[in-house]
């Protein structure tokens, strides 16, 4: 039963990732990305990462994907969105990617991983929270400052030109 769910989730993930890679309409690519993120969240659950699955749904599907859709709508003329996303160098890229996939899956299947058997499923939220507040406290704080800086920078960058115009009189007064 779990194996069947795993196969279905993998197919959902990979097929929608192929749609992202292959579709020439950038809006369809964004919708494919939505289903890829959902499939990846399901795979997290099967690998006993329940907190990460919820985070994936909240941050990726609720945040990043909405951001990407906004960028698509703001940066493409929707009427000619079929022309908005052409692909170049398809055949060489496909050859490289398929060869790389073959190499990576060959390595993954033929390596003797030091797998521990009998790992049971358990909630991870409490463990992760404790680790973030003890062993990984410094990276946690650094990454939160980084996120704050990035978001402030993004807000500043995407402000309309009127923001710059509002600054100019002040500078002229300074002169």
């Amino acid at each position, binding site marked *: 039963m779990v194996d069947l769910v795993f196969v279905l989730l993998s197919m959902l993930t990979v097929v929608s990732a192929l749609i992202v890679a292959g579709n020439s309409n950038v809006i369809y690519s*964004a919708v494919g990305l939505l289903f890829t993120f959902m499939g990846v969240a399901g795979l997290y659950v099967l690998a006993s990462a329940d907190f*990460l699955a919820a985070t994936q749904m909240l941050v990726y599907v609720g945040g990043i994907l909405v951001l*990407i859709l906004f960028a698509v709508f703001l940066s493409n003329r929707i009427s000619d969105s079929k022309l908005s996303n052409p692909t170049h160098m398809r055949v060489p890229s496909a050859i490289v990617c398929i060869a790389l996939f073959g190499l990576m899956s060959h390595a993954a299947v033929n390596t003797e991983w030091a797998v521990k058997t009998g790992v049971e499923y358990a909630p991870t939220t409490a463990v992760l929270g404790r680790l973030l507040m003890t062993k990984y406290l410094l990276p946690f704080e650094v990454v939160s400052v980084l996120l704050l800086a990035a978001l402030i920078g993004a807000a500043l960058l995407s402000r309309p030109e009127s923001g710059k115009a509002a600054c100019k009189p002040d500078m002229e007064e300074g002169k």
Partner: protein
Amino acid sequence: MSLDKFLVVSAALFCCGLYTIMTRRNGVALLMGVELILNAANINFVAFSHYLGKVMGGQIFAVFVIVIAAAEAAVALSIFLRLFATAGSVEVDTADSLKN
């Protein structure tokens, strides 16, 4: 369902992302490819964390990857919006005014 199957799914996702990055010129589509690759890396982290005996470091690392991806998407998309306002398109080929 075993470790190597997770790794094969992750490799497929990685190659889809790589193909997207190699073939597209649209900046937003490039960003989608980057997100696919980051997700592939995250699947690897989580799968190793589960199958190598509940080592929680992998899941912690995946959390950090998600945070970095959010920051990167916000900054990249605002840059592309600015590029669209100045150059009129988000094709990354058109952003060559420094060269010309």
